[in-house]
Structures are given as C-alpha cells and as structure tokens.
C-alpha cells in the first residue's frame, strides 16, 4: 500500500483482524476463515502446546505463563492469557443460563438483554457449541470426592444437587486438578482442540504475544496497532506493528476489550457510553469450609477405600456438583444464585480464605496457619449470583490492560467496583445458605473469603461492552456491532449484558456463534468474499443445519 501522508504509513493488510483467541475470537475466526475470508488473530499471550502445561506452581511455569490476575479498585479479575484464552485455564463447566436471566432488568428499569434474545432463541446456538467442543454429561460414578461431599451435604439439608454438563472427556481425565495451568492430558476440550486448529486449517493466522493497543482509521480501513511482548517477561516489549482490515472483531476479554476501545477513542471518535461501564463480576464470591472428617463419616455416611471419609480437597477437576435450588425465576432479582463446589489451587486460593471463629480479619496469623494444616479437608463453595453491573473502567494504562507488576500474571488495572446493596444482599443470602447446609450437625466450619485485600474477585468477568436495545446502556446492538463504529464487532464476555447465575463460558460461546451471520453480512457488504455455513470444527452438521432458518432475522439491523 502506498500513501504519502506520514500518519498513514504502509501497514500489512488482511480482510478481518480478530483481537483475542478465547471463545469470542476462536469461534468467529473459525467461521470467517472457513467461509473464505482472510483472517489474522492477534493474541497477547503465548501459544503453549499440551506438553508444556506443567503440573507445578513455580513462577515461569504454565500456571503463571497463561494466567492473569489483574487487581483493580474493589474488584480483581482472573483470566486466561494465551492462545485459546479462558478455555485453556477454565474448569470447563458448561451449563446453559436459566431462562429468567434473560428477563433481568438490573437497575436500568428495562430488560437488559436485546428483545430478540431469550433462552429459547439462544438454544440453537448453545446446540452449535455443544456439538463443536463437544460438551457432555457427567455420571455419579465420575464425580470426584469434593463434588460428592457437597452433594451429600445438600441432600442431608433437604436440598437438591446437580451434575452440570462439562467440556471434558472424562475418560482421559486423571482428576489432577491442575486445570488452571492447562490440561496436560487433553481431557479438557479447550479451543486448542477444536475451533482454533480448524481455523488454522482454513488459513487463519494466529500470532501469539501480539498485544493490541488501539484501533485507528486508515483510508477507509481500520488499522489495528499492536506491541510484540517478550515471551518470558511480559513487562517487556520487543517490537510492534499494525495491520489494516475491513472488519475488526474485538474479543480480548472483558477486562481488556473496553480498554482497547477507550484507548482508540482519540482516533476513532466517541465511544458509546456502555464501553467500559456496566462491568459484572457474575456476582461471584467464595466460601471455604473446613470439613470435620468424623462428621463426614457419621452424618453423611461417606468413606473412601483407604478408610478416610474425605480429605480430598486436591482431587478432582474443578467444580463437578452444583446446587440450583435458588435458580428460581419466581424469586425477586438479586436473590437468585447457584452454589457450586469448586477447587481453587493454593496461592490465590489460600490467601483470601479466612479462619472461622477468629474475630476480625482471619486471613493471616496462627489460626490461619492451623487452618492450612487441614487443607485437604477444605471444601470450597462458589457463589454465582446476580450483581448490579457496578464496574467502571478508569483511564487506560499506558499499554495493555494493566500495569504489570510481576514478570507474569500480576498486574494493576483501572477497574473500579463498589458493590451496591443489591449485590451485597445476594451475597448475604448465599453465604447464609452455605452455612446452613455445611454447618448443620457440626459437619464443617465455614467462612467467606475476605474482600478486604483485593476487593471482590471474579473468574468470570462480564458486560463491560454489552449488547442491548437501549443505546444509553449498551455499547453494542444485538448483532454485536459497536454503536457508531460500523465494522467493529465485540464477541467476548464483555458483550454479555449481566450476571448469569451460572458459569458463563457456554453463553459467551453461543453468543459468538450467533454473532457470526451478522459479521459475515457486514464483511460481504465490504467486498470480502465470505459465506456463512461451516459445519462444526470436526465436520458435524446437525446443529449447523438447525440454525440456517434463523439467519434472516440475525442479520437485520
């Protein structure tokens, strides 16, 4: 490309740039490449093969290479930082969102979701992802001890407990619980096993360690500016460049997408009000219980072949059993939640846990150390509730989405979050429910994690650039196009309007699948020779065929 103007120096050109390679990036990249478009995926993290997924906590192993912890003001966000994004570090729990979630209003006085999306209209897109990953059922014979203990405790307290669907090939799983460092055994059906290799086979190019900073305009195209990041010390930049494209898909993750768009505002013009606002932490919160081993035997009748009743905190594959007793659409908003058994590795998973019975903060000191002696008898319960979209992103840091403190993993971001009374009410109800279930008959002593150190925290950040019908409270239309900036689409967790009360990966993925036909139409209008209609990455076609009649409504603006 030749251009005399110094601000428009020549840049590489492609049809479509996808920023990020998690669910929102991998799914769109696959369909667009399979449909005939020239696609480049820019991913800020490394591309790590399965045999480099370490079992270990040492700084510099995969547990810090592919995982980010960004502390904010009142909210800290944990997320993936690698090719495959969250799918590589997640626990692969894949429930569909309950129907009432789509009717939520939050505090905006109207339905948060676009009127055309509800559980019924999203189900065909859930089906596509279910077929693609694939997602499968668990059986009780496959449930690890911590899930079994939670189920037995729920049952003892007169509650129900479910086995959520998972994107795990359980026959390959060793229950090692190193999932957050990547699955060494390819049991977890991350995007590295389906959408991403299929995208590459259709010609998509994935560039790891390319951290997008901003988007500008260049001769009717969008110009995507990136830094190249050192592969060991992420604080260091080794180069940079730009790529021009007709369409840009921003899927950098909920904690990064709005930051890129904020930083682009000077070049692209005013961003919609919803960019960097309405962030939701999915109403997440954790409680740690210390199980009384004898009571687990006496009260719940549990025992292992070696004679122990439980002592199995380390065994399993993240969450396997969940209580959905409070996912009841007839209950008022901000009082509905799921309670999921979870494993959280030591490190981040131990500092915030508080010793029960200690007056004041219980996160350090002799009692906390005594609590650590019983670590194998811990049971962690994860609250997924309805928060009030309180999060707001402040001015962007100089590069990336945080000022990196450590070589890898730890950074300080610009997200501010102050929970409102509605969010606090939901947490209070959920804490009380956990206590009621687990402290019954002396089974355990329970205490919530402290929010005093790093604020609230979430592994499922959502909504920082959300879809909706109301331009005042949503950054994207129902087709995921950024309002006022045609040709820019956002397809990651930031597009989800609000907390889901369940693990969100399947909903994020289904929305990305649903967004593809509209992006294809926009690409066609810009002269890109691309068609919609690719099968699942492994060639399966039943879910693909089922969505074809839905396309006309999806591309309508």
């Amino acid at each position, binding site marked *: 490309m030749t251009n005399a103007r110094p601000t428009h120096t020549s840049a590489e050109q492609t049809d479509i740039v996808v920023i990020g390679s998690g669910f929102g990036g991998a799914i769109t990249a696959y369909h667009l490449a399979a449909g005939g478009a020239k696609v480049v995926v820019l991913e800020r993290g490394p591309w790590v093969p399965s045999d480099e997924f370490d079992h270990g906590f040492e700084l510099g192993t995969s547990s810090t290479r592919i995982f980010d912890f960004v502390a904010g003001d009142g909210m800290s966000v944990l997320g993936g930082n690698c090719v495959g994004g969250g799918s590589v570090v997640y626990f692969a729990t894949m429930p569909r969102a309950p129907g009432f979630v789509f009717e939520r209003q939050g505090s905006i006085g109207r339905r948060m979701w676009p009127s055309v999306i509800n559980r019924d209209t999203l189900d065909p897109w859930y089906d596509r992802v279910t077929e693609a990953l694939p997602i499968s059922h668990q059986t009780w014979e496959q449930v*690890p001890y911590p899930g079994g203990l939670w189920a037995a405790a729920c049952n003892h307290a007169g509650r129900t407990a*479910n086995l959520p669907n998972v994107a795990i090939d359980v026959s390959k799983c060793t229950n090692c619980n190193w999932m957050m460092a990547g699955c060494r055994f390819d049991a977890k059906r991350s995007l590295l096993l389906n959408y991403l290799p299929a995208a590459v086979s259709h010609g998509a190019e994935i560039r790891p360690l390319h951290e997008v900073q901003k988007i500008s305009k260049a001769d009717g195209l969008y110009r995507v500016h990136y830094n190249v990041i050192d592969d060991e010390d992420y604080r260091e930049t080794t180069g940079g460049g730009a790529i021009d494209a007709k369409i840009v898909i921003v899927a950098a993750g909920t904690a990064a997408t709005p930051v890129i768009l904020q930083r682009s505002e000077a070049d692209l013009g005013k961003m919609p009000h919803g960019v960097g606002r309405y962030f939701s932490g999915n109403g997440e919160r954790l409680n740690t219980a210390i199980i009384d081993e004898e009571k687990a035997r006496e009260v719940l009748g549990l025992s292992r072949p070696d004679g122990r009743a439980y002592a199995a905190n380390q065994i399993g594959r993240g969450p396997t059993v969940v209580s959905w007793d409070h996912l009841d659409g007839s209950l008022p908003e901000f009082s509905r939640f799921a309670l999921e058994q979870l494993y959280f590795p030591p490190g981040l998973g131990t500092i915030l846990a508080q010793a029960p019975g200690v007056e004041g903060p219980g996160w350090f000191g002799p009692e906390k150390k005594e609590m650590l002696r019983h670590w194998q008898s811990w049971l962690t319960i994860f609250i997924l509730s309805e928060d009030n979209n309180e999060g707001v992103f402040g001015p962007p840091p100089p590069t990336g989405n945080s000022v990196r403190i450590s070589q890898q993993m730890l950074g300080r971001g610009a997200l501010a979050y102050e929970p409102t009374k509605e969010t606090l009410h939901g947490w209070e109800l959920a804490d009380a429910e956990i206590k009621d279930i687990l402290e019954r008959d002396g089974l355990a002593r329970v205490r919530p994690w402290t929010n005093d150190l790093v604020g609230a925290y979430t592994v499922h950040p959502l909504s920082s650039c959300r879809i909706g019908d109301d331009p005042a409270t949503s950054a994207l239309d129902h087709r995921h196009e950024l309002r006022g900036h045609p040709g820019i689409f956002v397809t990651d967790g930031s597009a989800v309007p609000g907390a889901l009360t369940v693990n969100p990966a399947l909903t994020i993925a289904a929305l990305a699948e649903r967004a593809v036909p509209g992006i294809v139409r926009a690409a066609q209008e810009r002269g890109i020779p691309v068609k919609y209609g690719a099968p699942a990455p492994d060639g399966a076609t039943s879910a693909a065929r089922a969505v074809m009649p839905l396309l006309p409504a999806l591309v309508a603006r």
Partner: protein
Amino acid sequence: MDTSAETASRTLTLEAFADTFVPGEKRSPDDVAIAGAAPGPGAVMAGAIELLEMPATGVASGLDDIVSTLNDHASDYAAEHDITLDAAVPPFVALDYEHRSALMRILTAPDHPEKEFWVLTALFCFMAFDTAAHMNTVRAMENGHPGLTTMGFAKPDPDGLWRFPDFSYGRQLARAHPATTPNGDPA
C-alpha cells in the same frame, strides 16, 4: 551501619514480616525474627525471603523501601502504644507477635493508603508457604517443603505428574433439581 549490618537488618525485618502472616516456630532460642507464634515451620522456613528476592515477582527491587517503611511504621506504632523498643534490632523485629500482627492489620486495612503495597508483599510470603513458587514443585515435594508438607499436598507419580485413580464415592448422593431440563441444564 555498615553494609553487612544493613543486610542483616534487612533480612531480619523481612523475616519478621513474613513470619507475621504464616507464623512458625523459632529456629533457635535466640531467634529474634521469627516470633514463635505457631508450631512447625512457617513462611520464613518455607522460603519467603528467597521468593521475595526473585526479580520475577516485581517486588524485589523495592524491598529496601519495604524494610525502611515498615520499620518507620513500627517506630510510630511503638511510640503511640508506649512500647520501648530494643535498639539492638530493627523496630519491627523488636515488636512482639501481638503487636506485629496488630500493625499489619492496620497497614492492610481497606482504608489504609499503602494497603496494596503490603497486601502484595504478603501475598508472596503466603505463596512461599503454600505453593513454593520459588522452586520446582516436584523437587519441593521430594525435599519435604515445609508448607506443602504441612498442608498435606499429595505426592506426584514418578513421572512428576499428579493422577488420582481413587477419586469418587461412585454413587448418587443427591437428587437433581426437579426443574432440570432433559439435557441437564437449569430450566
């Protein structure tokens, strides 16, 4: 102070800091850094100072500031509480465990302007104990790392990978929510 005295003072202060979060037993009767507030090895014996000194953490270059600021806070705290400090050791080290702990509660409280700084440094003290993040985890297990051993962290297989073939009670332990869809999702 000469350089070696400064180094000793710095190490004593960092050890006393780490020991406040995950306390341990004294290494010897005249151990002044470790307060002896809990039985068994604590953060110091687990390698907290080694981890804090690693450049990868991002706090190593600031440890001198951490030490001097902490000792300034300790002097102020002692003055406010009418405590006479032993001048032979750094001020924070001169505080007993109860007062070290009380000072750290103040510095890590949500409204303290330096909270983030102290929480971040404390985080690495915890990580030394409960993850041995300064060393290879398999080697840490082989060497009987104090923190992982205290927690009962399971040993890996001979190839350095963890597998749990005994993992399930193997039976149904609760009934599903009645509104579950045939596909296994919430309605």
